[in-house]
């Protein structure tokens, strides 16, 4: 997922001024430089955020990508080429991202992984200017590829798919009416309610109430009281809220005696969620790019086992499988095109079809977004349980 934090303009502007003096992070590269063996080296660049707001997403992407690269190199590379990952920290700074992207392009990077951070559009436009393929990384907004440029592709689930998947799920559960709670503050919370509403209404559902929440407010009692007083009560509530707001909302909702099921999106697959307690969480259902490892999803469980066998620890989150799948999808393109030339890769990208750990990546050449199914997670008490991948929705609203 991708979002940007609400900015209290005044204060943060001043913070930022002062921050210059304080910020001590320097770009740390964590690339494993293995010199080219028989063939050449295929350089993959990742100007990601590994130290700031979006490190939670970019760090596991990096881990998964590195894991795939190590595996591929160990079994002879791709077309005799050794893969190499250059991951540089952009500290969620747009200018820094731009600088690092240029640096990576100058070094001869033939593939760029998109950052989840604010510099994604800069990264995209620079990659496309150089005609080098770039992914959206862990960015789920369906509008990203259009905004980044013609060389950008989304290899993961898109937000309109999340909305559509949840709408289908709601109908299947027999929910006929829904209350939709969004926030116009950022695209993620602004667009998802629209995607859900379109898909839900398309399938015959009715949105009986809408409201706005403030991201990071720390209190949703007024919103909750309005929902509790909604007459007639809706069958379900949809909101693209994410942690740590979800905890506040769900607890206040259940305290108010509202037992209506709540549907939400991928910002909730987070280790901080369970502390909201079983009372608030039980039954809470949301979509995700991948499920946490468990017996119901043997591929992901196997991924975790292999990862741990190699590195002696778990990846920092399940998002690592997305980085892993991206590299293997890239490998499949290179092999299909029988070339490591970026232009050949760009030519092969629209037809990529790869069955990854996180599901089937089937590129739609017209939208440049993979038709990739969402996973669904349901809280059983305070623990995550995987509902698997319900399949690509029959109706997906346009971006």
């Amino acid at each position, binding site marked *: 997922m991708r979002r940007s*934090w609400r900015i*209290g303009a005044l*204060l943060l502007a*001043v*913070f930022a*001024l*002062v*921050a210059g*003096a*304080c*910020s*001590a*992070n320097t770009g740390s590269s964590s690339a494993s430089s293995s010199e080219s063996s028989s063939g050449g080296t295929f350089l993959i660049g990742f100007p990601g955020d590994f*130290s*700031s*707001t979006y*490190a*939670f997403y970019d760090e596991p992407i990096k881990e998964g990508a590195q894991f795939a690269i190590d595996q591929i190199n160990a079994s002879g590379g791709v077309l005799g080429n050794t893969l190499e990952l250059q991951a540089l920290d952009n500290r969620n700074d747009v200018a820094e991202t731009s600088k690092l992207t240029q640096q990576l392009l100058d070094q001869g990077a033939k593939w760029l992984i998109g950052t989840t951070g604010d510099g994604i559009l800069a990264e995209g436009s620079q990659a496309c200017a150089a005609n080098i393929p770039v992914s959206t990384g862990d960015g789920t907004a369906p509008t990203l590829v259009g905004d980044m440029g013609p060389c950008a592709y989304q290899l993961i689930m898109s937000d309109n798919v999340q909305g559509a998947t949840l709408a289908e799920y709601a109908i299947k559960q027999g929910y006929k009416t829904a209350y939709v709670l969004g*926030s*116009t*503050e950022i695209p993620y919370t602004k667009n998802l309610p629209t995607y859900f509403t379109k898909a839900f209404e398309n399938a015959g559902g009715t949105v009986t109430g*809408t*409201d*706005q929440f*403030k991201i*990071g*407010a*720390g*209190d949703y*009692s*007024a*919103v909750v*009281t*309005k929902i*509790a*007083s909604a007459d007639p009560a809706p069958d379900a509530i949809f909101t693209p809220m994410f*942690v*740590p707001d979800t*905890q*506040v909302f769900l*607890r*206040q909702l*259940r*305290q*108010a*005696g509202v037992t209506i099921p709540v549907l939400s999106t991928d910002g909730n697959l*987070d*280790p*901080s*969620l*369970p*502390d*909201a*307690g*079983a*009372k*608030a969480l039980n039954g809470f259902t949301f979509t995700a790019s991948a499920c946490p490892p468990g017996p119901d999803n043997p591929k992901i469980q196997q991924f975790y086992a292999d990862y741990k066998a190699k590195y002696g620890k778990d990846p920092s989150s399940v998002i690592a499988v997305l980085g892993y799948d991206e590299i293997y999808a890239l490998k499949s393109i290179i092999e299909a095109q029988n070339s490591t030339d970026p232009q050949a890769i760009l030519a092969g990208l629209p037809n990529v079809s790869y069955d990854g750990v996180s599901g089937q990546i089937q590129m739609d050449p017209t939208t440049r977004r993979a038709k990739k199914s969402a996973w669904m997670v349901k809280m059983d008490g305070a623990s995550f349980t995987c509902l698997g991948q319900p399949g690509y929705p029959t109706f997906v609203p346009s971006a």
Partner: protein
Amino acid sequence: MVSPSEFAQQLVNALSLGSIYALLALGLSMVYGVLGMLNFAFGELVTITAYTMLFLANHGAPFPVMAIGGVFAAVIASILMELVAFRPLRGASFVTLLFTSFAVAELLQNVFRQAISSRPKGVPVPSLFDNAVRVGSVRIGVLPLITAGVGATALVLLTLFMRRSRSGIAMRAASQDFATARLVGVRANRVISLAFAISGLLAGIAGVLWISRTTAVQPTTGFVPILEAFIASVIGGLGNLRGAVAGGFFLGALEVFLQATLPGKILPFAQAVALLIVVAILYVRPQGLFGRRVEAKV
């Protein structure tokens, strides 16, 4: 239309939210009153409370220990903040101190980010907080009840302290006229430390209540508390302690009732509307809604 029971419910919401804002505004105003400085690192005291609670929870401490530990940490952190960052700048201009407090806030957030995590961390709270009691047609959560109760108790005790104790009188004198208070024998360093200690205490109590509601902490957790505290204390008249409390409750009520009554299309602008109302208030009454006009000193 808002039904009577919905109205009553929103009133409870406003009171509960207002009591946290009142504690926060009071904590910010306390230091402003004595030193004439706005401590924007005040929000980080809430964050420190939360991380301390998390740390204690990870070590198996029961909730009361987490709460007391969290408050204690905020008090110590507040006193240290003054000693280390602000005392060397005693007598510096308002702007210098303001920027220093921004720097302290930013520094602490970086420390949290590097040393702990930039992601939210869950803080376990008793499941009792999720219960609710029914009063007529109104359902009142246990947590809002506790919040209002703790808030009111803290405000009453603080008022007693400020009215009855020698230190309280000294603090009030210092906030009216610092130089003269020193001439009378009030120890500057002690009264400033005390102001920061009480400010920390209030941040800590508000922090425990805040975290009991959010069950999560992240480096930016202090942002909303400091923002609300700032707005509430400006509404109440900066440095005016009674005004800060009134401003806190006013702001809580304003936010809840705007959310409750504004039509859907305008809701995204609720915050802007709230700020507009605040600016309008300040335009009419620059000394705040509850502040007395300060006599110019000769």
